[in-house]
């Protein structure tokens, strides 16, 4: 009886040990493979990466529904989490179909059906390498600005005066408030390696926090600490913007700007 009990106990401990070893190895493999990837650009409406990794069943119905073959399913060894959909904008960007055909086929809700307006999707954020951007180098390019489907909002062109030349620079600026990360800009960028690229916002986007006040912006109401007393006169208005940009007076004389 004693030996049988001992045998049973030893067997149980051995079994548990094997299960624990197997579980640890398996868990390690999962932590390598099934981790949320900041490098993968997901289809429109994708849940936050950790939830997406849990909910995507890797069926590829989103990829089948994409009319442009934008979405690819990650193969093992591709560096992306196995079997999940992603896209590479330099090859094929997201053309932002207004009916968002890739989202409804998702059977699990890993692509959220709350996304009704494609311009509200945030697949990534365009980031400009100013050192290799033709416009920032002083050439006229602005291709990214022209191909941007959220034209005039996601990418704007600012003109910068230059110290030693009388030609102004027209440089693109990306606005995270409107950029969907569709990647049309990255695909169109004429440099050998794209100087504007789509990246997971978490890799580049900062956050100013709660305690800064941009007092000159009207939407930032003055907090109660600084509330003006009823008697004080209203603040002076901003001086009117100059009618022409710096440099314009000598450059394009006679042309209305």
């Amino acid at each position, binding site marked *: 009886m004693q030996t049988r009990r001992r045998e049973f106990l030893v067997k149980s401990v051995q079994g548990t040990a094997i299960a624990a070893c197997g579980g640890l190895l398996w868990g390690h493999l999962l932590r390598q493979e099934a981790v949320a990837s900041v490098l993968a650009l997901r289809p429109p409406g994708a849940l936050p990466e950790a939830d997406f990794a849990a909910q995507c069943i890797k069926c590829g119905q989103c990829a089948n529904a994409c009319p442009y073959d934008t979405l690819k*399913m990650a193969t093992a060894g591709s560096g992306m989490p196995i079997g999940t959909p992603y896209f590479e904008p330099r090859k094929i960007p997201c053309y932002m179909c207004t009916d968002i055909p890739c989202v409804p086929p998702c059977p699990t809700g890993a692509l959220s059906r709350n996304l009704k307006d494609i311009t509200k999707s945030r697949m990534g954020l365009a980031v400009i390498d100013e050192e290799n951007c033709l416009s920032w180098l002083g050439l006229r390019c602005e291709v990214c600005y022209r191909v941007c489907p959220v034209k005039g909002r996601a990418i704007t062109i600012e003109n910068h005066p230059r110290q030693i030349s009388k030609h102004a620079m027209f440089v693109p600026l990306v606005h995270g408030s409107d950029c969907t990360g569709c990647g049309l800009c990255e695909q169109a960028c004429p440099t050998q390696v794209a100087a504007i690229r789509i990246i997971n916002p978490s890799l580049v986007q900062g956050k100013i926090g709660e305690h800064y006040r941009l007092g000159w912006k009207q939407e930032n109401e003055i907090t109660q600490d600084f509330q003006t007393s009823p008697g004080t006169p209203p603040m002076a208005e901003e001086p009117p913007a100059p009618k022409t940009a710096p440099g314009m007076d000598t450059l394009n004389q006679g042309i209305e700007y």
Partner: protein
Amino acid sequence: MDRPANHPVRLYTPPATLAGKFWDWRYLILRRLTQFSILALFLGTARFGWEIAGRPLLSGNLSASELLGVLPMADPFAVLQQLLTRHLLESEVLIGAAIVMGVYFLIGGRTFCAWVCPVNPVTDFAGWLRNKLRIPNMFWIPRQLRYWVLALALVLSALLGVAAFEWVSPISLLHREIIYGAGLGLTAVAGIFLFDLLVEKHGWCGHLCPLGAFYALLGRFALLRVRFDDPGCTRCGECVRVCPEPKVLDFKLAAQNGLIISGACSNCARCIPICPEGSLKFGLRVRAPITPNHGG
């Protein structure tokens, strides 16, 4: 077990004619046909946009799919793992999993293994080659191990918050990489092939695969079963030799029930044409077992 004395034990003799051979391979041919047509439907829909009346024919893969844009289907084991990660899933995938579960509950869970699973042709080939080359088992692995792997998959899914088996499943991997483009996933399948060929007979499907284990549990009460005619049987053992799950051919149990009751039986039907007495046939599980030996 008493056998009729005037009943000589015959062994299986392959038919001389080609037609006879094909007739004996009928279930094998049918299985390969179903396996490859299902794969072809997925592949055609994904790669060539096959559709009927503007509806995609069979979009997705074995993890989750939609037939003609209306009928959702999903792998119930994958969905179970996902639910254990405590994420709320859309109803499509839940309905799809219920439909697939219902079908396999009726036709036998492991019917998936022998008739649908894309890994089956690979392991069948490894098994066939192993027989030809007469390679012995390297060491003994208990067949119950797969149920432990199944339990571990569920525990890990709950602990790590991701579908533990679905992420590393060589079945999904092979299937997906055939449909959507090949990568290193095919090496995992090469691994299974070598394991089955050189290490353990029926190693993957018969000992390790948690999906097969899940379907074995689901198929316990299946309606479609291999029926066993005990009086005709001479216990020649040909069926046990070809069966990938020899334990399911327990003659005593089979005689008592008039059918193969184990959920581990994959309805592969290798045993049916090989039986020299014709004692094994597909049939339905019926309440009263037809066993004249036991007061029938």
